[in-house]
């Protein structure tokens, strides 16, 4: 049960600010995923936490005590490096056993723990090899093994699965999820793969340019992204964005908006909560409507549905068998992706009519800030 707290942490490398005031609480016994575009400072944040870098300002607390001045050793945190960082001159076994030997564990204990970790990570047949004789994916797993044999207070994973093939990645994702349940420790997990973040993490932290954009459970981020950046980051394929303008306030709960294609729709926006942004909400102001590919459906020709229809033409089909991502170009020059299931034979160039429900739309004001979250799906 190790909680890590970052308070106003900043980090600059020679006057280049890399981390800009991060306030973050990493809950104990949970997995926190750190996602963000390349170069936004994810690895730097991990290095700050494990003590390889010292924050320029701010404090880092592990279990309530400030560790700013503590060397990495004293923090008891294990890290899996993005570059594996295996010891080139040691065998796989020694790589995993090194920290234990240093810590003075007994030989049988070491052998048992290493064997166990190696089995879990499916590298038990490689124990006699040196890192040079391993593939990238195998090295990555050895690096994970080196961290887990130690039973540390917390794990920091820096993109641990980035070098695996799709099948192995899914399998390792499952193994990590199991490991997480088994070890029951604090995990911080950096990834580019938002699928990994969504499935493994209890909390997702989205970073941009050294600052946290939004933090929340996977579902919170999926349902209520705070701004366009988060909205475009979570979800695969990414959310569609359509330009719109405000036509009029119907009442203080409902807004009439018009898409570029001329369709109008009524969206529920709690005006009370948004009062302070009044200037952005005048009639004629620009908005962005976000709609996820999975929330668009093909309009049925037989049944008339209440809602908004988008007419367009199929420009590309990515058929995955059980479902297809269909790229539709709208007459006004915008494009949307749609996830369709069932019979997925769509000819390119065919006309298609899409149906969207206003409840599914994310509404962003002209600054890119979300005006509402989607309703929580009631648990059943």
């Amino acid at each position, binding site marked *: 049960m190790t909680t890590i707290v970052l308070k106003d942490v900043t980090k600059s490398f020679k006057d280049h600010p890399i981390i800009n005031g991060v306030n973050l609480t990493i809950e104990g016994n949970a997995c926190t995923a750190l996602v963000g575009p390349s170069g936004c400072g994810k690895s730097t944040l991990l290095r700050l936490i494990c*003590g*390889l870098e010292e924050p320029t300002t701010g404090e880092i607390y592990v279990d309530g005590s400030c560790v700013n001045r503590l060397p990495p050793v004293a923090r008891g945190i294990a890290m899996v490096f993005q570059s594996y960082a295996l010891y080139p001159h040691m065998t796989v076994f020694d790589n995993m056993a090194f*920290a234990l030997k*240093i*810590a003075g564990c007994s030989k049988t204990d070491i052998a048992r723990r290493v064997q166990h970790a190696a089995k879990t990570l499916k590298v038990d047949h490689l124990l006699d090899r040196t890192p040079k004789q391993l593939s990238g994916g195998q090295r990555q797993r050895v690096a994970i093994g080196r961290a887990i044999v130690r039973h540390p207070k917390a794990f920091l994973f820096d993109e641990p699965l980035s070098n695996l093939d799709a099948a192995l990645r899914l399998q390792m994702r499952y193994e990590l999820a199991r490991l997480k349940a088994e070890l029951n420790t604090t995990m911080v997990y950096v990834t580019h793969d938002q699928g990994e973040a969504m499935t493994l993490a209890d909390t997702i932290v989205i970073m941009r340019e050294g600052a946290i954009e939004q933090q929340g459970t996977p579902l919170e981020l999926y349902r209520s992204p705070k701004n366009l950046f988060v909205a475009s980051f979570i979800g695969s394929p990414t959310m569609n964005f359509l330009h719109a303008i405000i036509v009029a306030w119907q009442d203080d709960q409902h807004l009439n908006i018009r898409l570029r294609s001329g369709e109008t729709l009524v969206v529920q926006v709690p005006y009370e909560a948004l009062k302070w942004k009044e200037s952005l909400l005048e009639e004629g102001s620009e908005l962005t409507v976000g709609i996820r590919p999975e929330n668009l459906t093909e309009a049925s020709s037989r049944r008339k549905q209440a809602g908004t229809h988008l007419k367009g033409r199929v420009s590309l089909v990515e058929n995955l068998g059980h479902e297809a991502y269909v790229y539709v170009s709208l007459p006004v020059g915008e494009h949307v992706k749609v996830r369709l299931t069932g019979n997925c034979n769509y000819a390119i160039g065919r006309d298609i009519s899409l149906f969207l429900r206003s409840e599914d739309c994310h509404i962003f004001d002209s600054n890119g800030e979300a005006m509402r979250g989607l309703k929580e799906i009631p648990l059943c």
Partner: protein
Amino acid sequence: MQQHSSLSKTAWLFMTPCLLVLFVVAAWPLLRTFMLSLTNARLEDITHAQWIGSANFRDLFVDAEWWGAVTNTLLFAAFSVPCEAILGLMIALVLHKTFKGRGLLRAAVLVPWAIPTIVSARMWGWMLHDVYGIINELLVRLGAIAAPLPWTASPTLSFVTIVLVDVWKTTPFMALLLLAGLQALPQDCFEAALVDGVSRKRIFFRITMPLLRPTLIIALIFRTLDALRVFDLVYILSSGDSNTETMSIYARRHFVDYANVGYGSAAAVCLFFVVALVTVFYINMGRRNILGDA
């Protein structure tokens, strides 16, 4: 097949100048020395030499002075090379850290290596002069020694002096080689070790040293071969003293001073074989580390 042979023909064509130069500057002198070592050639009249077979070598192997020279050379290498390696490693480790003025220090460390040996040996010779030398003067004034020491005259002391001056001169070379090796090591596994809870001392012995071993062995080979051929430093610091005479000085003495080209060549050939033997030994020792990692 046609293409292959024309390709190798072109290759030979390109290699020819290099092979020619190598033949002229390496193979021919070596061969000539071998041949001369089997004759009774004299410096005054090399052309009228007679074959005397292995007589020169028989004489050489019973000459106590020669074995003295061999011992001196081996002792010199055995003392100077490890000292240089240890000091060089220490300096390399310091220079590997980032601190203000590191660039300047790196340049400064190189100065002894940059001065020609003749110059630095003469310089040290003056400084260590038993009557006029500044070192004796300073030590006496500081009270470290009661009377001036015969740095380059007493048998054991002059050996120590030679080793010390050689260490002074070649440690920078060692340091620079090892620094290059240190900088090529993967940084991330040191960080991994820090996170793994390994102390700095252990990191040095369990990670730095094993990873640096190939570089260290190469540096040792270079330095040992150099040390076995040592000439100028000893020649200038203690010329004509049989207590510090090395193999190459012995060869030169017989070759030039006694004009006995055949005998001198035989000594040179023996020196060649000693050097070759040590090289083979090192390469065998280092094979696992150098080639195994490739």
